């Protein structure tokens, strides 16, 4: 007998199916990891806002969070707590994971077309540490020696296409596929990426001189890079190289001569349309003298 107010079996079943479907949808939404994507979008938007000349600097703070990424050959990561886990099986997949992080970083910070560093009386280098990379110990299955040369990574970047675009990662980030040749022309070594170290995916730019003497910009940059030396090269689409003399001894870390023994390729830089310099995405060891000598005055990303 069907009484008024009584729920029929069909209604109850429908209700249960509805609740279960809702739970399943929620589960998949969380599994998709949209939060990470959202953080990148929020960062990108805050960078664009900051670069808008009509909005005062204080009204548009950067809202970029450093990602902790663990590249692992299995599903575990012992060296990090709750990281963004990237599972890889081959050398190329490892390079792809790194390339994606670098390209994302470049995109988030406006591809060199946005002045997120602002204006300052004394221009400073503003570094954006997009992510911190850690290689899980399981990566020894792929890299038996526990390291690989950055040269191989640049080879990969020059060959592989970025997303659905027809251009390579290297073309997208550096405007050239000849980063390796450029470094070799200067007789520069590529560093080894060692599995036991932590690395930053870094980009950055020097702020615009906010005073009256525009000529002071160059001087500002010279002061900031300190022991790092900057070289412009002709005929490569405005691409330049940033070099730091190799650390032959931790105690004796001083500026050196172009292409001298032990000089390493650190990161490509270029003169941007604001008249300052932009460091294009690169991998830099976290606790290294190379990073310290970049002398990043203010980090545009928070942990």
């Amino acid at each position, binding site marked *: *007998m069907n*009484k008024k*107010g*009584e*729920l029929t079996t069909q209604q*109850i079943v429908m*209700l249960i199916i509805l*609740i279960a479907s809702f739970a399943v949808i929620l589960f998949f939404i969380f599994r998709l990891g949209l939060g990470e994507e959202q953080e990148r979008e929020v960062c990108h938007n805050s960078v664009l806002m900051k670069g808008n000349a009509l909005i005062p600097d204080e009204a548009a703070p950067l809202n970029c969070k*450093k990602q*902790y990424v663990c590249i692992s050959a299995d599903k575990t990561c*012992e*060296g*990090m*707590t*709750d*990281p963004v886990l990237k599972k890889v099986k081959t050398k190329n997949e490892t390079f792809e994971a790194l390339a994606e992080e670098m390209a994302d970083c470049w995109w988030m910070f406006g591809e060199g077309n946005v002045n997120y560093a602002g204006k300052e009386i004394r221009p400073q280098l503003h570094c954006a540490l997009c992510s*911190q990379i850690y290689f899980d110990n399981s990566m020894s299955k792929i890299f038996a020696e526990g390291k690989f040369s950055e040269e191989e990574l640049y080879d990969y970047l020059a060959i592989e296409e970025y997303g659905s675009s027809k251009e390579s990662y290297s073309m997208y980030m550096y405007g050239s596929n000849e980063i390796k040749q450029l470094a070799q022309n200067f007789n520069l070594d590529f560093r080894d990426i060692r599995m036991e170290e*932590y690395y930053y995916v870094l980009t950055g730019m020097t702020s615009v001189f906010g005073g009256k003497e525009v000529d002071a910009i160059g001087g500002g940059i010279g002061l900031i890079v300190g022991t790092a030396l900057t070289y412009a090269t002709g005929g490569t689409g405005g691409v330049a190289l940033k070099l730091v003399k190799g650390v032959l001894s931790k105690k004796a870390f001083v500026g050196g001569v172009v292409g001298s023994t032990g000089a390493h390729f650190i990161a490509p830089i270029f003169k941007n349309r604001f008249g300052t310099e932009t460091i294009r995405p690169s991998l830099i060891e*976290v*606790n290294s003298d190379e990073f310290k000598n970049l002398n990043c005055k203010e980090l545009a990303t928070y*942990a």
Partner: protein
Amino acid sequence: MNQKGNLMTSTVLKMVIAVICIAFLVYFLSALYYSKINSQKSIEARSSLDQVRLGIINMEQNSVAEFEIFDPSPVGWMVFGFVSPELKPNSCSGENCLCICKKSAGFLGNNLDKQLGACVEKGACEIIGNLQDFVEFELDSSGGAFSGIRLKSVGENLEVEKI
């Protein structure tokens, strides 16, 4: 047929659905509230660690053996030292570091994993390479009396203790 009983079934079902909805609502609102509170406290913790960093620079430049930081905040959070070879919070990058974090609910002195998670999510850390291991302590106002963190340079190492 018991009509009363039939009506009860539907009412109970409706009540159950209502309770689930209210529980969801309470969860989302409290998550929003605590996320706001904790992010504010993380900023306070960062600020206290900035004082620690400046204190260390001061000690190095002026060859001072001790430096005190009074009334660090946030009150109720813990000061931890993550010294090798322990697993460390991500922002320590494998180095020794000093952290001010919210105490994990399950932390009983040896439940490091839970506390690490809490330090990654709610807290701030400062890398101090020569930090010496110490027993964690809570930041409190000590009933209005001065409280704080004392940094002591002992040889090559840096000791941290509660005042």
